[in-house]
């Protein structure tokens, strides 16, 4: 419930999100991003392609230069030919044409720059990569919202589901359990609300009173029309998250490999310093 509130700026939206989070009663379960994707150049390149084609309509990555993508195995010529639209140079930042002011006028809020997004979305509870992996796979059709889309990880999200064609139609089932305490008797009762959103966004709600004690909670499940396509989509999102995670901290791979040598050197140095120390202190009685 923290995450949505961070993203919504103005007080009005804050209130909406708080209400949404309160309605959900508990935190959305965050799924694990398959982190082995970060090690595969193919995945990173696929992620870059999806990022440029689907995300960069609205989101920039201004802190990243195009030629940084050499690190994921692309040559300048490939970057120019396959990834850069328009007249940007490979040494330019990954800019977009839309200005922040225009974006604000059109969408009400400027879509954030995604250069450091997986770090910025990390919390003590889960890594930002898991959050974005859950978010991008958490869309469902909901006729009750302005965009026609809603999201299990971010209720009433402003961003539409740009990847919907890749994901394909699916039905969502959201199960919310909340407790209600009678102020007079102090008796606590639990109600389970099951909302089924069909592929067109029409909702069917059923409420069942739970017998006996229960805990507040939220769970969800999706039923895709085409399971094969849905699996491919999950894999693409995992690649996209790998790419976002790469641009967040491009030095991380070399950092780790240099780190091993630094620690080995220091270990050797420690042994020498330890023996030197022992030689000197031998005299002290």
């Amino acid at each position, binding site marked *: 419930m923290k995450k949505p509130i*961070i993203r919504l700026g103005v007080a009005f939206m804050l209130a909406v999100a708080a209400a949404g989070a309160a309605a959900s009663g508990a935190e959305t379960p965050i799924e694990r991003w398959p982190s082995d994707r970060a090690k595969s150049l193919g995945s990173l390149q696929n992620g870059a392609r999806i990022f440029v084609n689907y995300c960069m309509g609205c989101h920039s990555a201004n*802190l990243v230069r195009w030629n940084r993508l050499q690190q994921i195995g692309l040559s300048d010529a490939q970057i120019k030919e396959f990834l850069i639209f328009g007249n940007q140079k490979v040494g330019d930042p990954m800019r977009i044409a839309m200005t922040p002011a225009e974006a604000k006028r059109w969408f009400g809020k400027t879509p954030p720059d995604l250069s450091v997004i997986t770090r910025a979305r990390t919390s003590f509870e889960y890594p930002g990569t898991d959050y974005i992996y859950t978010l991008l796979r958490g869309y469902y059709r909901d006729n009750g919202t302005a965009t026609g889309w809603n999201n299990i990880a971010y209720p009433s999200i402003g961003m539409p589901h740009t990847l919907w064609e890749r994901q394909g139609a699916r039905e969502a089932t959201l199960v919310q359990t909340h407790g209600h305490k009678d102020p007079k008797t102090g008796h606590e009762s639990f109600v389970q609300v099951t909302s089924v959103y069909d592929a067109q966004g029409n909702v069917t709600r059923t409420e069942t009173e739970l017998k006996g004690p229960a805990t507040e909670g939220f769970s969800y499940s999706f039923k895709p029309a085409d399971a094969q396509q849905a699996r491919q989509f999950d894999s693409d999102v995992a690649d996209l998250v790998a790419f976002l995670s790469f641009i967040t901290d491009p030095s991380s791979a070399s950092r780790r490999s240099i*780190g091993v040598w630094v620690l080995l050197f220091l270990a050797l140095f420690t042994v020498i310093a330890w023996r030197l120390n022992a030689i000197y*202190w031998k005299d002290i009685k």
Partner: protein
Amino acid sequence: MAEYKTPYTGIAGWFDQRMPTAMAEYRKHLSEYYAPKNFNIWYIFGGLAITVLAIQIVTGIFLVMNYKPDAALAFASVEYIMRDVPGGWFIRYMHSTGASFFFIVVYLHMFRGLMYGSYRTPRELVWIFGCLIFLCLMGEAFFGYLLPWGQMSYWGAQVIVNLFGAIPLIGPDLSIWIRGDYVIGDATLNRFFSFHVIAIPLVLIGLIAAHVLALHDVGSNNPDGVEIKKKLDPSGRPLDGIPFHPYYTVHDIFWLAIFLMVFFFVVFFAPEMGGYFLEWNNFIPADPLQTPPHIAPVWYFTPFYSILRATTEQFMYVLALGTIGMSALLVLTVRNSLVRGAVAVGTLVLLLGYFTLDPKFWGVVLMGLSVLIFIPLPWLDQSPVKSMRYRPGWHFWLMIVWVVAFVVLGYFGTQPPSPAGQYTSMLGTVIYFAFFALMPWWSRMGTFKPVPDRVTFHPH
């Protein structure tokens, strides 16, 4: 004037002939500085603090070469350093990791002082300079934390500067004067940059020089709290002292190597340290229109921040009780009637203040006091012996209770406000202050063990 004949040969001789001060200082501070031979692991942290200072200064010099102290450019310039400056990520992670390690080693260094009574006569000035260094370090960390211009930088600075607004009468104007604007802005960033890179470091280096010079004049304490200068050999050297160089230089180099392994493990493998060294929210650029739901200072400030948060309207009653108890204790134990009168009047004024002024103001006062209370420690501690080794066992455990309170306060300072955290922080605050306020009484109580004439030392 007779020509000075140097006893040195080679390069040392060349220097000594031309600048005898150089070799004299070398002797005074290194080769003929006699340090007790029974130092244990707690004595490595002063040297480590100097090392971290050196790391911070050198990496800081390189960071300033590419950093832009401008509200519109600062955030991107830090990421530019991390991405496009060759080796920039290494420099920046060393600096951010160094900030946290500075506090780790300084807290351990201070704990050592507390444990072995290193602040007692004749080392009061060493201790006071040390406390001032700690204050400077806090200032340095606070000003530096604004520079990356992330959300936590911005809102952390906003919260802390707003605290000055709680001071009666001058508060609101004072906080505007500090910021140079009605909110944290470009003017604030520029002045904080100036404080961080030049003003505070200058004072800091001066204080460190004073700290070390004062220490080398009176000599180091040791785990036994024995004055080694009381037992000299025929040539006037302390019997239990050994030259700092080479014995403690090789010793400190060994521990430095181990320290560097820990330090560089963090730099290379966990520079964010799970969100404690680099806070996740600080990777979102500062936005004056968007307050983060949970603003927490970096971990090293959180014990003091918890004390601030614990001071609510409810806590004022606890504070009033504590003040009354304290003044009753003073009136009953101090004979001087002038002091008694002053205590009574002071108590009345305080009680009046507790329930007329905003509790937030008292929170600020307590937070300030929680840092400054270290300064009078040499006079609060009335124990007949210095070291915990020869004090009653429960003195040690009392100190551990205080340390636990400090850590627990620190933990709850990182967490969002909660009722459990609130009451625990109140209890922690009471323990924190009671430990110091009652020290003049409890530190004399109990059975003390006999202090040996000479230090206890087992050859390695």
